């Protein structure tokens, strides 16, 4: 029909039609601030942070159910719940989900929400790239999980997917293809996020916010983003090689052609060991915020805290081969990596001592965030100590691929990273949503988690030293593993109950707040120290009315408290007087955009094309180009979106971000 030429109706130029003509539908610039459209088109770092958290929680439930399946299978000898094949898939999907789709995005949620607030910025450096990161992560994660339905089963090669187990011969279904492509997409998302957040921290700090006045959380996240920036390309290479092998017949891991399977191990762990710190450092940052607040003391040894974080970041590059002591890398390599691994325990130890010293002599309030933080310090110490035993190569040779390793990294990742992330959720929930989570339920949640966690993973130390292999589908009654496996399975139900309590807590806190009209917790419910508490809860869309001038580390605290002659803190100003009101108008903000979502949705389509049929990739590629270039040709901020702003007050040095984001490119003047 479009081929039929006919004359158009003339609407005299300049005469404005009675109704807005928007023939572009979804392609028109989104303007809504509420409803689902505002979420899918948002470029607001706070909304993106919340979406990261929600998605990670969803994947946590998926991964948790997979974990329960594993434990139920192992509850008794000769378990028959899962076949050996399905068991392989379940533990692989559990591991990948928990590492890449739960802990990393959960940490990214906090980074997105808090970094701009803690440095006094209006948004991140590239708001649309930020949205792209999220949608790509979500797309990659969902894509990876569709392997269950369309790939002939999930990946079954273990979360580090060693060659040649990952090869076509040993894993003929498409599960590993989904692993390679899904992680590639999620990895690219993290890389974009890393560039974005580093630029944000380096470039967009409020005036006076020097690097060494930044909160420890911001510092730890900065280190994490640098680790991501430099480690992700390595796994990108490895995953490309794997995809080329499996889909295009390359020979990178084809041993019969002389390929070396250790290449995968090296590439994976060059990425994988920094990854370990990528997982744990955000939680270190979170508890470094909570412990001083709840102990009512500044963090002990701030420079040590920061430098130990940086040291971990650098040393994390030189220890990867301790994951490979048992794979025959030669005595000199083993000795060198053994030594470097022992050394990296030092900065971690510094951190633990500093937290203890911060609590020492403080007026500690044991509410839920503090309980979780203290739980992290204790549990991570156990995990760290069992980690040091791995650095001793002879011992490690015995522990490799036993449940001792499983116990160790769950103490580090669950007892460390995850408890820290829960602490952060309870701590910053009022800031994000304007309501407190119930503290009593929170404590129940904590104790259920802590007890269940130790019941589940504590016995694994013993099982491992008894010789029970990890990833083994079942065991015999005569092996003597029965009792401790029962205990572990018993414990996992405690954890599940704890999670149910947490979910109920979210629901009940929200509904009682809705019904009873519980008061807003106010800008600063914890009497805290960093900048995000100086603005109302929930955070207004423009973050800061006036970009603050920073004069000291913990600047917000020093506005509230001075010191008497004995050095004790005395209040010098009421909190209500020093917090901002959140009522600023005419602030430049970046306009929402659909293009990040369009661009991100093209990648899974291309992924399916690579795996199943190249023809599917063509529409994906066209969509990709359309998303990319539509984005590039779309101004970051619509000229109309901040029309009529005159002499806005926030003209501090920190306002540059607003200016950068809102650069009104008049030549891009946009019609329609």
């Amino acid at each position: 029909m479009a081929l039929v030429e006919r004359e158009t109706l003339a609407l005299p130029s300049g005469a404005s039609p009675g109704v807005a003509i928007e023939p572009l539908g979804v392609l028109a610039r989104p303007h809504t601030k509420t409803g689902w459209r505002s979420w899918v088109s948002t470029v607001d770092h706070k909304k993106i942070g919340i979406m990261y958290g929600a998605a990670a929680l969803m994947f946590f439930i998926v991964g948790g159910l997979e974990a329960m399946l594993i434990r139920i299978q192992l509850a008794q000898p000769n378990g028959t719940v899962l076949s050996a094949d399905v068991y392989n898939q379940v533990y692989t999907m559990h591991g990948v989900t928990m590492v890449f789709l739960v802990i990393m995005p959960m940490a990214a949620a906090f980074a997105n929400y808090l970094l701009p607030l803690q440095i006094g910025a209006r948004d991140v450096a590239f708001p649309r790239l930020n949205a792209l990161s999220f949608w790509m992560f979500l797309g990659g994660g969902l894509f990876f999980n569709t392997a269950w339905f369309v790939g002939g089963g999930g990946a079954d090669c273990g979360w580090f997917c060693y060659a040649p187990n990952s090869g076509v011969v040993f894993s003929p279904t498409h599960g590993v293809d989904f692993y390679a492509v899904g992680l590639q997409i999620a990895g690219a998302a993290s890389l974009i996020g890393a560039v974005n957040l580093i630029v944000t921290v380096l470039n967009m700090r409020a005036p006076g916010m020097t690097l060494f006045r930044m909160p420890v959380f911001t510092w730890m996240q900065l280190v994490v983003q640098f680790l991501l920036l430099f480690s992700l390309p390595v796994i990108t290479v490895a995953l490309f090689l794997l995809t080329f092998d499996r889909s295009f017949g390359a020979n990178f891991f084809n041993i019969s052609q002389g390929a070396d399977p250790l290449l995968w191990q090296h590439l994976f762990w060059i990425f994988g060991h920094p990854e370990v710190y990528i997982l744990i450092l955000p939680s270190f940052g979170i508890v470094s915020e909570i412990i001083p607040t709840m102990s009512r003391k500044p963090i002990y040894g701030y420079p040590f805290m920061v430098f130990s974080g940086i040291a971990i970041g650098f040393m994390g590059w030189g220890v990867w081969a301790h994951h490979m002591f048992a794979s025959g890398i030669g005595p000199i390599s083993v000795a060198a990596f053994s030594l470097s691994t022992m050394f990296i325990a030092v900065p971690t130890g510094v951190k633990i001592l500093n937290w203890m010293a911060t609590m020492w002599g403080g007026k500690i309030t044991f509410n839920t965030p503090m309980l979780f933080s203290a739980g992290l310090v204790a549990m991570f110490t156990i995990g760290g100590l069992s980690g040091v035993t791995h650095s001793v190569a002879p011992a490690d040779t015995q522990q490799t691929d036993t449940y001792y390793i499983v116990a160790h990294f769950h103490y580090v990742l669950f007892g460390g990273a995850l408890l820290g992330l829960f602490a952060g959720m309870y701590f910053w929930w009022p800031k994000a949503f304007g309501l407190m989570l119930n503290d009593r339920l929170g404590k129940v949640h904590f104790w259920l988690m802590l007890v269940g966690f130790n019941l589940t993973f504590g016995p694994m130390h013993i099982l491992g030293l008894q010789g029970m292999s990890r990833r083994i589908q079942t065991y015999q009654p005569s092996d003597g593993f029965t009792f401790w496996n029962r205990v572990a399975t018993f414990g996992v139900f405690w954890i599940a109950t704890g999670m149910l309590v947490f979910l109920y807590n979210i629901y009940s806190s929200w509904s009682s707040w809705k019904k009873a009209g519980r008061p807003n917790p106010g800008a600063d419910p914890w009497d805290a120290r960093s900048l995000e508490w100086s603005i109302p809860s929930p955070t207004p869309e423009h973050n800061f009315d006036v970009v603050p001038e920073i004069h000291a580390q913990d600047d917000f605290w020093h506005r509230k408290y001075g010191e008497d002659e004995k050095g004790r803190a005395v209040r010098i100003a009421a909190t209500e007087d020093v917090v901002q009101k959140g009522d600023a108008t005419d602030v430049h903000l970046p306009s929402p955009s659909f293009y990040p979502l369009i661009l991100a949705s093209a990648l899974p389509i291309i992924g399916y094309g690579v795996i199943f049929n190249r023809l599917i990739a063509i529409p994906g590629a066209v969509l990709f180009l359309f998303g990319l270039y539509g984005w590039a040709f779309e101004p970051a901020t619509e000229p109309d979106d901040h029309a009529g702003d005159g002499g806005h007050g926030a003209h501090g040095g920190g306002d540059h971000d607003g200016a950068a984001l809102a650069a009104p490119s008049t030549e891009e003047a946009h019609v329609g």
Partner: protein
Amino acid sequence: MITTGAKFYFGLGFLLLVAAVLYGWTSGGVDWGLFPGHLGDLYFEMLGALTLGYKGAVGDHLGFGVLLGGAAASTTIGSFMVAFRDADDKPLAEVAGLPTAPPLQLVSSSNVWATIGAFAVAVIAVGIATSGWFVIAGAVLLAIATLEWAMYAWADRATGDAAVNASLRNKIMNPIEVPLFGAIVAAFIALSISRLFLTVPKVSATWLFLGIATLIFVTAIALAAAPRVPKAATRGLLVIAAIAVLAIGIAGAVAGPREFHNEDEEFTVEGTGGPKDLYVYGQVPTTTAAVQEKSGHSEKKGE
């Protein structure tokens, strides 16, 4: 309300449907002897055409399909016209918020896509006679021309303001056009010139490579050094360069690649796995696709 345009398309659709049924029936061969008393048998003979092939058969499938497709297309277009009240000036005026529909306006911009589409059809015709590659190239060109033409036609009457229309078109089409154009320029040059390198002897390829690059470089220096260069001169130069590159590519492709020294035929047969026969583990499938194919094959055998 059924609009004027819709009536036409509905009528056309109905006629095509009747034609399809008749054609489907008659092309299967009609036994006229059935008419006098065996109407029941006649019904069965027509059943295939009447049920559109659901029960029974039709004669010539291609013709039946074309006619039926035409009927479906016409009906769809008619429905669209009803849905969007096309060619009805009252709703147009309503949407525009004007008391009466504005007067007609001639399309002022030129449309090159008709010409390009015709050229594409010609390429396909040539391709049918010579080589399958031309058919593919022509089909791609035709698809591009159709898409661009459709967009052009749509955007030209999207709002009624020529400037707004142009920006609408650009907003949708530029994101695809610009990168594809860049890629096509790169691919065009790379593929054409590499044909030349493949044709000439090895040493000449190196010197030609150096020569072409130097030519580009020197031309750029000359253009940049000149105080003024008329636009027409630059454009002419680009057109000549494009034709030259195309000529080089075609000449190279026609002449075909030079002889390549093949180390050992046994290992170079593509697609059969070649050196993989040397595998320690015997013949090992190396891609997932190969495995799926293999397993699918064995399943069939099992049946």
